[in-house]
Each structure stands twice: as structure tokens, then as C-alpha cells.
């Protein structure tokens, strides 16, 4: 029984990681509003972003409950500074060109998909429920971003070149997703987080097969990986994202409703 609170804390922390990553990627996609390469993409990007922010809200709601209700989902999203955010470094990277946007999405979607697949079976009904709903959405996200990897990788010479650059430049942010720290190891044994080895194998398998089909080079397996997002040590980008996203809540702290 003495383990119980510590597992709750670990779960709370883990829920914030899931929520923050979804929110920040959703936010990055919001930045693209009106700037996508086609109207169809406007719709699809906003659709994906909408799913992600919705999922973030569900995870925040549960995290807030576990915390004891001092803060609600909006407080978690809008009143924490960068060092308190637990999102993956990958999702805070700038949109770049559409190759970067899509490579970032694909690497994340693949991780997200296998993560949710594990969480669907979590012994915590709430986690399993949110994951099940999210998994349906993310299955589509992954299909879509995989398709774009192939279209751009195996499209024209220019698109191939751009996608090679995108994959190479984002690769260093993928290691963090596949390495479990103590929090995640602890939860994995309780079935509340995916088994790290399995997740890494699944992710690498899928990524290898999609990159290969997309005629793209596979970055070296021993590439140096950046770490830090999950423990609040971010890149310089996150501060600017939050300054914009949180402005109204920060500037009008007395507002009770919006």
C-alpha cells in the first residue's frame, strides 16, 4: 500500500507528458492555419490538431483529478512555464517546410500509436478509455503521415531531397520517445505505460519500413540523441510557444470565464 501514492504521482507525471506533447504539437499545427500547401491540407492539419488538443484535454482532466483538484485542465495548459512542461522535444520543433512538418508528425504518430495501443489495455479504466478513443483518431493520423512520407520521399527529386533533410534533422529528437526513465519503467510494470523495449522495436520496425518504402535513408542506429523534454529541460523554442499560447490567461488573471 505504501507504493500507491508513488504510483499515482508517476501516473500524474506520465499523463502530463502525454497531454503536453499532444497540446504542443496541436499548437504547432494551429500555427499553420491558412498556410498549408492546399485547402485539403488545411482541413486535415486542423483535424489532426483538433484531435490532439482534445486528447490533451482528456489527459489533463484526469491529471488534475489525480492532483486533487487544485488546478483544472486549463490551469495545467495555460499556467505552467516551460520548465514545468513535459512534452517531447520533437513536438516543439518549428514547422519548417512541409517535409519537416510531416516527418515530425510521422515520428510522433508512430510513437503515439504504439503507446496508445499499449494503454488501451491499462488496468486503469480512465486511462484505457481515453486511450481507446484517441487510438481511433491516431490510427488515421498515422496512416495519413505515413502516406505523406511516401509521397514526399518518393515524389519528385526536390521533395525527396527535402524529406531527407527533414528526417536527418529531426532524428536526434526521436531517441527520447523510445527511452523509458524511472517514471515510465515504474508504470510499465503496472501496465500503465508501454513496455519500452517493445515500443522501441515496434516504432523502429514501422519507421524503417515506411522510410524504406519512401526511398529515404535510414539514419544511423547509433546517432546521438537529445534528451530532456520529459523532465522539463526543453529547447529554446518552447518558451516562445507558451508566451503566445498563454497570453490571455496570463494577461487577464482575474478572468473567471472566457
Amino acid at each position, binding site marked *: 500500500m505504501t507504493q500507491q501514492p508513488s504510483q499515482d504521482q508517476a501516473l500524474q507525471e506520465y499523463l502530463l507528458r502525454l497531454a503536453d506533447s499532444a497540446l504542443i504539437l496541436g499548437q504547432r499545427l494551429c500555427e499553420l492555419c491558412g498556410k498549408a500547401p492546399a*485547402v485539403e491540407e*488545411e482541413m486535415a492539419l486542423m483535424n489532426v490538431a483538433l484531435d490532439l488538443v482534445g486528447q490533451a484535454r482528456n489527459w489533463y482532466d484526469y491529471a488534475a483529478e489525480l492532483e486533487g483538484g487544485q488546478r483544472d485542465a486549463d490551469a495545467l495548459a*495555460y499556467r505552467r512555464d516551460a520548465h514545468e512542461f513535459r512534452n517531447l522535444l520533437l513536438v516543439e520543433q518549428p514547422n519548417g517546410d512541409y517535409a519537416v512538418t510531416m516527418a515530425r508528425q510521422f515520428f510522433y504518430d508512430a510513437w503515439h500509436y504504439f503507446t496508445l495501443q499499449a494503454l488501451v489495455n491499462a488496468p486503469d479504466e480512465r486511462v484505457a478509455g481515453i486511450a481507446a478513443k484517441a487510438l481511433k483518431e491516431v490510427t488515421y493520423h498515422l496512416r495519413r503521415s505515413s502516406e505523406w512520407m511516401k*509521397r*514526399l520521399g518518393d515524389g519528385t527529386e526536390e521533395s525527396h531531397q527535402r524529406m531527407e533533410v527533414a528526417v536527418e534533422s529531426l532524428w536526434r529528437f526521436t531517441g527520447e520517445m523510445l527511452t523509458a526513465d524511472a517514471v515510465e519503467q515504474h508504470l510499465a510494470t503496472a501496465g500503465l505505460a508501454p513496455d519500452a523495449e517493445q515500443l522501441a522495436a515496434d516504432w523502429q520496425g514501422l519507421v524503417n519500413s515506411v522510410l524504406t518504402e519512401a526511398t529515404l535513408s535510414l539514419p544511423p542506429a547509433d546517432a546521438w540523441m537529445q534528451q530532456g523534454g520529459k523532465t522539463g529541460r526543453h529547447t529554446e523554442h518552447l518558451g516562445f510557444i507558451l508566451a*503566445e499560447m498563454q497570453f490571455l490567461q496570463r494577461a487577464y488573471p482575474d478572468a473567471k*470565464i472566457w
Partner: protein
Amino acid sequence: MSPEERAFQEKVDAEIKIEPKNWMPEAYRKTLIRQISQHAHSEVVGMLPEGNWVTRAPTLKRKLQLMAKIQDEAGHGLYLYSAMETLGADRDEEIQKLHEGKAKYSSIFNYPTLNWADMGTVGWLVDGAAIVNQVVLQRTSYGPYSRAMIRICKEESFHQRQGYQILLDLMREGTAEQKAMVQDSINRFWWPSLMMFGPSDEHSPNSQQSMAWKIKRKSNDELRQMFIDQTVPQLEFLGCTAPDPDLKWNAERGHYDFGEIDWNEFYEVLKGNGPCNRERIATRKKAIDEGTWVRQAARAYAVKQQQKQQNAA
């Protein structure tokens, strides 16, 4: 009138929809292409003033609502471009015209969104004015356009209620600063919303023919009056005012009287001198120009896939 023309006009008069394969006068086709493409462009350009706040939406709930609204607008753009294509127009060409300043879009989107309450006001007033136009267009004579309108109107009405709700919440439970945002927003959007119905009837050139073809079904001034009559009670319910000292109920007419629109501003915005004309077009042009390689890649990939399938067969 040729026999074809007569037959066409008889169908229109009998409220039978004209469908893509039916014969239609060239001028009817052109007018429709112009009108539907303008409408489609407006949906897409209309995403920009909202995109300006979607990254700053103040709560998760409002952010999700705004994202859903923007997604709907992209969807409307797509339906409308499809309806336009049934008339033989090319989407890329029409977009090209937009970027070259040769095609129009709703002038309202040349006004900036300067505070959060604008996300309410745009929903309430701008979508509200659009709906007044569009409700009538549900009965327009061209089938694909009419059907697109029916679907779009339903979603727009939802957006309008949501927009009004934003303002109502702020006015009822907001701080003094938030209430001031709402009034400021209404002050900025009131007149431009009235301008959305176009020039007054005496200065509206194409209206007569469009009425006969049932592309247009009510005059600009009629629609404007309808909008004002339905909007003023909502304004009063909010507890806000309009920036129009002449606005008052005229029991004799059974309508609200209102002040003279600043037509000089209207024509300046139309000419490209609105606060955001340049920015809106520049943003759209940049998106499509910078997306060229993406669309080319998608086409090249599709061709390769097709060839592979043919080779396999």
C-alpha cells in the same frame, strides 16, 4: 431568346434546379463561377482572421471550438470549389486570379481581429450576415450550389450561436476588461458587417439579371435590413451598443432605421486599401507558392503508383 434559353428560363421560373449537364447560358455560367469562387475564396481567406487567434485561444474549450470552426471553413471552401468545378472552372486558375487581385472575396476579412472577443463577434455578426445571404441562396437555381449552401448554412448557424455565446459569457460573467473587449469588438465590426451585403440597390449593377436567374433572390438592401432587424435585439440582449447614433426602431416601417454607411470606406477596402488586404493575399499566395513542390510531389507519387499498378496487372 433562343429555344434553349427559353427552356432554361422556364425551368428556373418553375424552381427546377439546373444541374451541371444541363444547358445554361454562358453568362449564367460565368456569373455563377464568379459568385461561387468568390464564396469559396471567402471561406479560405476567412480562416486567416481566426487563425490569428487560434494559437492564443484562452481556454482549451474555446481553442477546440475555434479549431473545429476553422476546419469547417476549410471544408466549406472545398465543397464550394467542387461546386464551381461542376461548371467547368479550374480551381487553380481561380485561385491564381485571387492571388493576382483579379478575383474578390468577402471584404470583411480585410479587417483585423484585434482582441479575443473578435472570435465571438466574427461568429455572431460576420457569420450572421453571411447566413442571411446564404439562407436565401439555399434556393438558388443551380443545383450543386444550392446543395452546398444547405450544408454550409447548417454549420454556419452553429458557428453563429457559438460566437454569440462567447460574447454573452463575457458580458455576463466577464471582468470589466473583458466586457470592454466585447464592446470594442462590436464597434469595429458593426459597420463592416453591414457592408457585407454590398452596395445599396441603386448602385448594384449585376443584380437584375441575377434575380431573374434566381442566383440572387433578394436585393442587397432587403438583406441588410433583415440582418439589422434580427441583430439589434441580440445586441440589446448582450447589453452592448452599436456605433450608430441613428439606429432606432421605426414602428411605422416595422424595421430598424440606421445611419448612412461610409461608402467611401467600402470602396477603398474593395480597391485593396483595407487594413489587411495586402496581408491576407500575401499569406494565401505564400502558402500556395511555397506548397508548389508539395503538390508536385503528390502528383508525381500518384503517377508512379499508378504505373506500378499497371505494371503489376
